[in-house]
């Protein structure tokens, strides 16, 4: 595992740990998801560049389009939460608590 592979792998795992362990704000969780998507984009691009498989440099573009869909749906949920509850703290979404 070269240093660049270690870097994006640790970036992905850090984003995953931030998403799993911290849930005060909904926006913090969405930002951690975006960080995971960023590390995936860098990983796919580096794979296509290092292997010199130029046909596969389409894959990061498609990943970026799908991550734009994910980000827009998440932010729409954030706006809907802020309109119904007045805040985006996940403690206020207590209908989901069991």
């Amino acid at each position, binding site marked *: 595992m070269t240093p*660049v592979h270690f870097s994006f792998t640790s970036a992905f795992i850090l984003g995953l740990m931030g998403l799993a362990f911290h849930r005060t704000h909904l926006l913090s969780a969405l930002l951690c998801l975006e960080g995971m998507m960023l*590390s995936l984009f860098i990983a796919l691009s580096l794979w296509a560049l290092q292997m010199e498989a130029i046909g596969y440099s389409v894959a990061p573009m498609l990943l*970026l389009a799908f991550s734009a869909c994910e980000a827009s749906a998440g932010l729409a949920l954030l706006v809907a939460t802020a309109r*119904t509850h007045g805040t985006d703290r996940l403690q206020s979404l207590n209908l989901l608590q069991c």
Partner: protein
Amino acid sequence: MTYIVSLFLLGLVLGLVAVASNPAPYFAALGLVVAAGVGCGVLVGYGGSFLSLVLFLIYLGGMLVVFAYSAALAAEPFPESWGDRSVLGYVVVYTVGVMLVAGWFWSGWYETSWVVVDEFKEFSVLRGDTSGVALMYSYGGGMLIVCAWVLLLTLFVVLELTRGLSRGALRAV
């Protein structure tokens, strides 16, 4: 170039530490902006100039601006930065954890594994990733249509989620 790319890799990990340590969303968005900008530098160092440009313009210029704008919805009177006690503990724990795992792999990293491969090539105007992305319009046409369809579907999803009258997903407002 090798030293600069090494600094960029360090900045990528530290940017994700800054996001994952759960500060206020203002500062988390700032950390993600730093991580995205530094990731562009990593891709330039490895020879993907067009993909780096796409990452800079679309991701950093399009999506993160929307995220920074949405941070206004999570406004707090006293936003906690990385220096506060609850956040600083996570910063220290994540940094030490990454350094421990890096120390585990340290014995396998020689001098040549840090060198960017692109330094040994000639200068070239036509890079591989530019022509590779252009394949999306010929052989990747099916995936292009799927992508456009998904984006259109997401537009209607967002419109239905935020409508707020008697028909949408929000009926309490």
